[in-house]
């Protein structure tokens, strides 16, 4: 008996603010909004820095390294073909730990994911988008 194909991912609707986040993966770049004056990161992306009261904020490349703030291992098969278990996580960026990105933690056994685990970004192509995902950092001990 053949397994049904994994369900397609539900993709975000693109607007001028989130376009860089969901498309710059084409060039291997994770882009996060950054203030031109105080260099604070602003996420979710909006062209306004609340610290400086300025709209001079734009997407900038970051390292793509981060740590797992929290995670869950999903066991329930919500729809047919959904490959379980899988990990849903919030990842804090190395440059800006206050910025938390949602991702699946891939390329490892779900049982190996831990709090504070070092992870790095990769990009999963989907239609015209490049979805940021995270996997264990290759440099990690």
């Amino acid at each position, binding site marked *: 008996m053949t397994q049904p194909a994994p369900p397609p991912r539900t993709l975000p609707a693109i607007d001028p603010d989130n376009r860089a986040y969901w498309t710059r993966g084409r060039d291997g770049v994770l882009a996060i909004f950054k203030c031109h004056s105080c260099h604070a990161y602003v996420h*979710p992306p909006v062209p306004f820095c609340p610290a400086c009261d300025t709209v001079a904020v734009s997407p900038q490349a970051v390292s793509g390294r981060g740590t797992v703030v*929290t995670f869950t291992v999903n066991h329930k098969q919500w729809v047919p073909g959904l490959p379980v278990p899988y990990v849903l996580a919030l990842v804090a960026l190395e440059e800006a730990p206050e910025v938390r990105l949602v991702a699946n933690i891939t390329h490892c056994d779900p049982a190996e994911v831990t709090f504070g685990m070092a992870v790095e970004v990769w990009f999963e192509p989907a239609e015209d988008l490049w979805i940021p995902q995270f996997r264990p950092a290759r440099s990690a001990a």
Partner: protein
Amino acid sequence: MTRHAEKDTAITGIGMSDVSRGASKSALALTVDAALEAIADAGLTRAEIDGIATWPGERVDGSGFSPVGCASLQDALRLKVNWYAGGREAPGQYGAVFNAIGAIAAGLCRNVLIFRSMYEATARKTAFANSLLRPGERQAGPFAWYAPYYTYAAALQQALFFNLYVHNSGIRPEQVAQIPINQRRNAALNPKAVYRTPITLDDYLASPLIATPLRLYDCDVPCDGAVAIIVSRIDVARTLRNPPVRIEAIGSSMQYRNSWTQLDALDTQAQPKVAEMLWSRTDLKPVDVDIAQLYDGFTYHTLNWLENFGFCDRYGAKDFIEGGRRIALEGDLPVNTGGGALSAGRLHAYGAVHEACTQLWGRGGARQVQGSPQVCATSTAGGPLAGAMLLVRD
């Protein structure tokens, strides 16, 4: 000192439809049942209802999450109102009550019918109604950040927060289990509860893992049912048939990042400053609270509220509920005395208000808390949503 407007309002009547895992009546018919019962319980007539409110307002998406809005119920009952409101962006489910307090204070109305309808049991028999994701549709708005990652249900977002809480507090599954075990024990004494067969620690530990650390018995039970309450101006309330259940204080604030990803403190959710606001509006203290009807969309919410209301210290809930005696009907702080959403059915925080009044009016029957409870703490919601009320029998 500022006079807080909620103190000039009171709950004067309550109503609840049949609650089931599959109704023979429509959602609107269930809502009519609850509304008529509440109006009669208050000793009012339909003509005396001059305001109507609900949360989150009518949704026609087939999910059963909110199948009846103000317009449908108002028209069904032919109410003539001076004010009405139903909308999602509010401090959780109690947003409808907080709006009604404002409307009464503004002189717009005197007796507000507030209701919450659920039809999720039926919805789930016909479709995968729980899904936050719509196949083939691109997701806009804040949930878009979760959408591509197989985040099919709110349970996954809450599991993220719950797991961090478990990590930080060191709570063990057998301690968490005291919440659903206690509530099922209470539900056995509640004729309207959906599930009434007691569960054991072994049952809890054997229940399927949904998303770590959430098990099935950590999750509330989708049901078909409706609750209605009447909130009246205090001077009107004192002329009606029930002793007024005064709204002594509310917590409605949002002082955090209003975001399911950037929320400042993930493992406490938005509750601490909401509780802080509530306590700033009353001379009562946590020690004065006789019973608590705490949000239990997931067990974790109840643990959070025990701590954030100040009934125990941060990460002290595991010790507070150990063995289950303190939160039992005969304990120091009886919690979710009718079985809560985990056992009585997911009436989404309005079951909790109904149970609060039931207890404060001494109508609890076999589950009535002894000693004539006078003060009840009640709360809603998780993530960046949170609302709380302190209810006091006049």
